[in-house]
Each structure stands twice: as C-alpha cells, then as structure tokens.
C-alpha cells in the first residue's frame, strides 16, 4: 500500500530480490511506472475500495495475500496494518509503525485476533557499523556509560512543509519522521531510556538529551540547510551525519542500499522485528513530540544554540 512515494522502490526491490511476487498495489497517485521495473503484471488501483475488492476476490479463489507491505504516509500505517491483518495477511510496515504508543497496544490485540503478524523495518539494526558498535558496547565493561553526540541534518526544501511530512499530525514531526531509526538504534545499542529531555523543538529541528542505561546522548536533528556546518555548506552538500562516541567519529555513510532486502529476508525467515521491538522508539519519539522544550539549559547538543528560523509559510 503506497506505490508512488519515495520509499516504495526499496520495497519493490526487496520483494523481487527475495523471490516474491507483488500481486496488487494501491496508491491515490498514478505515477507508478517504476512498477514496470519490478512487477509489470501487478494489478494497480487508485481507490482503496477497488484494491480491497480485488484482494477479496483473490482470497475467494484460494489465492489469499501472504504479506501486505505498507509504505503509505506515517499517519495511515495503523489503518493499513489493521487492514492487512483483517484479510489474514502478515504485514510489513515502514517505520514509524504508528505514531503513539497506545496504537501499539491496540495493534497487538488486533494481531492476536488475526492469523497474521506485524513486522516493521528497522534496517539500521542490520548495518554492519551499527552491529560493530553494539558489539563494542556489549563486550565493554558492563557499567561503562558512553558519551555520544548524534547529529543528523538532511536539508529539505519548501515542498516538505506543503506535503504531509510537514504536518506534525500526519508525520509526527522531525524526530518521528527523520529520526525514528536513530532512536531505535540508540535504544537497541544502549538499553533502556532513563531520561528524555528536549532542549529545542521547532518545525525544522529538534535537539535534546537522552540518557540510556549505557549512554548519555546529545542529539540534533534538522531539515534546515542553514544548520549545516560551515565546511559542509562550502562543499555544496546538503546532508550531514555524525556519530561521535567519546570524541571519536563513527563512520557509517555507506552500506544502506540493501538493508530493505535484508529486512525482508529476515522477516521471511521468521526473524523479523515485530510490535514489541518497535515499542521503545515509538515511545521515545512520542515523548519528544509531546514534551515542552526546556531551552538551552543542562547538557545540550552544541548545535542546539543555532539561530532559530521562522516557518517558511509564516506558521
């Protein structure tokens, strides 16, 4: 569900590379020629009702849906996951699985009442650099608490604010929309959250501090090009990613391309990440979204003090 968006091609590729077939797709937008590169025989619908009708007819012929992949806008994931479970399919949904922790409780119930299971894509957990980092932490002294600075700036133009992504009710805001996989990774490596403080939070950035069992993390996430470090701007780049652990930079710019395929492979082997694994990061981003920023007090990320920008639409 969702075939015309940015992330859909990675799912098409993963479905194909794991030897599976996409039998039907739905998207209100019809610019989906990309499907011909993977599944030219796939049925395609612009209206949900017709998609549903098609799947129900297939089911009546004994050709039920095995898996339903969800790459729709964030706020629709919950509804689309429920739909998949209702038709007896397993569901593979993009992150964030849902926007709020209580949605997970309700989904768990729906999962329990269905024949299917819900899986999410947490591809950072398959990234070699992250695996190495987790190993380092797991094998280090048990009481060692690391200091980490996480900086992620991925510049977006004005279109971002016109699209559903710029609406906090639909995307969950910056932390949720561009940060969820980082929070998942941090929790996965460093354990339970002990403290979650937000210093700065606007339409284009979020800066805060999270204390995990094994790390004290200052983070800064932004979609505003003006927050890029000078040297990055000078190079004409629009993305900056930095993981600084105990003053040492962790390099992980490459190795992202096949992680969706790896995620699918694991799910098909019965080794995917379910609702339980998604919970921690959903809780973190929910707490960030609903917290009141305390401003520049305490242990804040150095970029938190960057000049605040007004919303491009004056909102």
């Amino acid at each position: 569900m969702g075939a015309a968006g940015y992330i859909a091609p990675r799912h098409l590729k993963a479905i194909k590379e794991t030897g599976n077939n996409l039998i039907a797709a739905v998207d209100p937008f019809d610019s989906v020629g990309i499907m011909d590169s993977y599944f030219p025989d796939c049925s395609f619908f612009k209206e949900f009702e017709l998609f549903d009708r098609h799947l129900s007819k297939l089911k009546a012929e004994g050709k039920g849906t095995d898996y339903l992949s969800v790459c729709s806008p964030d706020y629709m994931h919950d509804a689309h996951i429920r739909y998949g479970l209702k038709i007896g399919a397993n569901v593979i949904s993009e992150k964030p699985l849902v926007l709020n922790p209580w949605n997970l409780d309700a989904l768990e119930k729906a999962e329990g009442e269905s024949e299917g299971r819900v899986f999410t894509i947490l591809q950072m957990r398959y990234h070699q650099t992250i695996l190495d980092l987790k190993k380092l932490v797991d094998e280090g002294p048990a009481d060692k608490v690391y200091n980490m600075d996480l900086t992620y700036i991925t510049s977006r133009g004005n279109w971002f604010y016109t699209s559903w992504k710029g609406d906090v009710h639909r995307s969950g805001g910056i932390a949720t929309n561009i940060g969820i996989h980082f929070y998942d990774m941090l929790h996965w490596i460093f354990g339970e959250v002990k403290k979650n403080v937000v210093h700065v939070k606007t339409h284009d950035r979020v800066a805060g501090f999270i204390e995990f069992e094994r790390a004290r993390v200052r983070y800064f996430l932004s979609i505003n090009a003006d927050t890029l470090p000078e040297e990055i701007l000078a190079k004409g780049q629009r993305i900056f990613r930095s993981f600084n652990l105990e003053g040492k930079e962790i390099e992980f710019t490459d190795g992202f391309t096949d992680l969706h395929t790896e995620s699918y492979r694991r799910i098909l082997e019965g080794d995917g990440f379910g609702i339980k694994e998604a919970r921690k990061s959903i809780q973190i981003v929910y707490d960030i979204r609903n917290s009141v920023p305390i401003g520049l007090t305490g242990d804040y990320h150095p970029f938190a003090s960057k000049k605040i920008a007004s919303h491009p639409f004056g909102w």
Partner: protein
Amino acid sequence: MKAIKDTGNDLCAAYDVFDSVGIVDSYFPKCSFFTQYELFERHVAKMNINAIKRDDGNCCGKLDYVSICTPNYLHDAHIRFGLRAGADIICEKPLVLNPWNIDALKGVERETGKRVYNVLQLRLHSAIIDLKKRVESAPQGKIFDVDLTYITSRGNWYYTSWKGDVRKSGGVATNIGVHFYDMLAWVFGKVKGNIVHVSSHDRVAGFLEFERARVRYFLSINYDTLPQSAKEAGKRTYRSLMMEGSEVEFSDGFTELHTDSYRNILDGNGFGLDEARNSIEIVHDIRYAKPIGLKGEYHPYASLESTAHPFGWL
C-alpha cells in the same frame, strides 16, 4: 528540472496534486511548492507584483516561463494559465489533443503577446538530423520506404492511470507516438495519406504517406508484441526505424535533449504552435480513424494476435 538548472535558470514555484516531490531538492531546494492550483496561482500573481520575497534574495520577481509536464489533457488549460500570467510557455508533447486547440491557443498568444514552445526533442537528435539531411540531399523525386516499430511494455498500472484513458492521454498513438510522428513529418514533409489498420487499447498500426516517404508503423505497449529476440535478451522496449531495408540507429543520445530544447527556446529558436500542428493533426486523425483491418500496406506486426483489455474493457 534538469534542463532548467542546466540552462542556468531558477524554478521559483511548482505545483502538483501529489506531494512526493523530494526530487525538487536535488535541483531547486528554495522552490515554493503547492498541492492546490489556487494557491499556486495566488503565489504567481503575487510574484508578478513583486510581492514575494525569498530569504536568499534570488528571483521570484515576474514570471518568465511556465514549464508544463502535466497529464496531456491538462496541457491546454495550463498553457492558457501561463500565457495569462504573462509568461512564455514550455510545454511537453503532445502540446494539445486536437488541432483546433492550437487555433484557439494562437488567439491567446496574440492576446497576451507571449509565446508557446513545444518540446520536440527528436528534432535535436543527431541521428535524426543526419536522416533529414540524407533525405534532403536525395534526388527530389525519391520516395523512401520506411518501417517504424516502437514497443515499450507497460504493466497494468498504465490502464489505471490517466495514460490508459483515451480522453486524457489521447491513446497509444498520441501518448507514446507523438514525437515519432513529429519526427516523420519533419523529415519527410507533408502528410498525403493516413490509414489505420489496427487500433486498440495497447497498440496502433497504420500507414502514413508523406511527400518523401511511405511509412508503415507499429506502436505498442504490450509486452507480448515484442520480437522474440528482445524478449530473450530480457528487454521490455524495442525501437526500430528501417529505411529502405537498413536500420537507422538512434537508441542512444537522448539524455541531453531536454536541456538542448530549453537552450534553443531561450536562444529564440524554440518550436512554437505552428511547428506542433503536423503531429497533432496526425495523432488526432489516427485517434478518430476507423481501422480498416489487414488490408493494403500494413506493418508486419499489425497481424499479431490482439489482446483483450486487462480490465475487460472494450
């Protein structure tokens, strides 16, 4: 977007009903973007009275050009919008669906003093330019025999989309063929005869007589109509232009043609409404012709078995 950027221009505002447009950031991160036509129109109106200020101080004064890459049936409306907004227009092909739309647009051009340009990029392709020279340097009375075959397989999504609706796309000849018909008319001159042998949701086969050529053509979006050799090579597209029994090679050299088109337009050498007319007339006539079946000079592929519409439509 690439052509606008490569010619040193700036895209100030864009409009699309769909909002998955992150691609804009690769070219014009400062571009304003709207999903509602009214808001786009309002923005353009404000630009035209210098009421839009951008933080980088660039552009966003009065509009110079409007580029149109919307579904075919909307081109006419969007061209009119741009002209009335005081801009020149750069529009994808087919410019419009019917010849009389061109007449009406000429009126709006006169009224506004602005111009409409059409992207007809095959005319800028070096292999096609060479072909035109070859024809022009041949003896005056020489009439060439040409077979044009173009098969570009499309999945079921095509029929769900506006492209599969003949009222919106104009059908197979218009949607995937208009640039070929334009090229044929450009190279071989006026149309003297236009016969359609087979026309369906997924293919069109016919015969076109030009001043300097007799052309049998076959256009299709159905994978099953691909030659065996293409299928075996794992290809989904097949393109062949045979002239007097020998192949005219033009499979490469397409990447820069949009930029070249923009460059020509900006240099004052663009293709205007009159240049678009021949191909629009051809595709219009094909759309409304009654197929005569396998009679006369038909393309060899015209006899391929026909296929039912994937949705069962007639």
